[in-house]
């Protein structure tokens, strides 16, 4: 039995949704922690996530890379110009984050965060172009304009939106503060 593109897209979209929920929860926890230090659930959550943060970020990067490779190599959706820029951000993360997680090297944030933030900004621009094609140009390039929406789930989750979800979660996981003894 082989999976259809629809099924894979739904799976990837659900993962992106999970990443978005996780990002919101972590950002909320960091905000609460800054505003009211010592809040029990926040400390518990951050204590639980911190040791696995690099590993989870590595898994997010690898899954994102595999998802993009699935779309271009299996589903035959040709990557547009902006897709390539996002790949430049994500693919190195899929290599350096697993190594950093293995070595427990939290200093990787200095190298990984610029990739995640840069890639995320391109994703943001790409999804704006999908919604407002005129931002790119007034017409469609005959080969492969970035304004084509190849996949859309739940009314908003397009491929660059999924990429942005991945970049955002990776960035938040890298930004988690060091443990306070």
């Amino acid at each position: 039995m082989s999976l259809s593109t629809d099924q894979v897209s739904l799976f990837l979209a659900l993962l992106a949704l999970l990443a978005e929920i996780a990002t919101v929860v972590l950002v909320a926890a960091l905000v609460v922690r800054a505003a009211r230090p010592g809040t029990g659930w926040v400390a518990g959550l951050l204590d639980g996530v911190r040791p696995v943060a690099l590993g989870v970020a590595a898994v997010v990067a690898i899954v994102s890379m595999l998802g993009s490779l699935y779309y271009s190599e299996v589903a035959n959706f040709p990557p547009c110009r902006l897709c390539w820029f996002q790949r430049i951000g994500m693919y190195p993360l899929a290599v350096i984050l697993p190594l950093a997680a293995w070595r427990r090297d939290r200093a990787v944030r200095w190298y990984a965060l610029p990739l995640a933030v840069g890639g995320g900004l391109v994703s943001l621009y790409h999804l704006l172009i999908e919604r407002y094609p005129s931002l790119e140009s007034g017409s469609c390039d005959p080969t492969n304009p970035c304004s084509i929406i190849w996949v859309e789930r739940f009314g908003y989750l397009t491929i660059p939106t999924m990429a942005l979800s991945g970049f955002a979660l990776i960035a938040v996981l890298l930004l988690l503060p060091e443990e306070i003894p």
Partner: protein
Amino acid sequence: MSRSSASVTRRRAAKQRRTPYLVIAAIAAAVLVALVVALAAGGGDGDDAATDGGGADPATTGTVTVSGSPLPQLTDPADDPAVGMTLPTLEGHDQSGAPMTIGADGRPTMIVFVAHWCPHCQREVPVVQQWVDDGGLPEGVDLVSVSTAIDASRPNYPPDAWLADEGWTAPVLVDSDNTAAQAVGLPAYPFFVAIDADGTVVLRTSGELTTDQLDAIASTLVQPATGG
């Protein structure tokens, strides 16, 4: 340090050791649920239909025969070397398979090239149709269209369903492999060509046009007829 505070520290440390496993378990469970939902809901329908349709549906498959010299590719609408040249005759069939020809037929004609997957075309088609419905197309001027770059793997396929949804009334020449698009020097979608009654190119332009711009193109086609 007292014995009780030492035991609290121990218990806290034990709890801290456990929580990462809880986080991993929660992530694994959520991913598993996503996978099960995708397997159950996807069903493997959808994209198979496009390929299974097979055969040669005239609405989505058609190669246009070009006679006459092709126009150079448009680079600058304000300085277009094709203006004054004769449009090559484009012969093919419409979406129902009936023969259709675009070329000099004694009536000035506006030709619009659209690709079903192009978001700018998706936005322009309703604008043009509204303009036609509001009586924007002058008496004596024809509007025809070319459905080009048809690709079942791309979004908003098939084009005939899309154009029907938009209430598109202009005749549609099917140019699935871009033969006609290349012959008229199309640089981008949507693409407009205006020819006079003799088939001479009056104007070419690409991109989304407003109704005012459509009016302007149509009026250039009307003036020579009334003037001469």
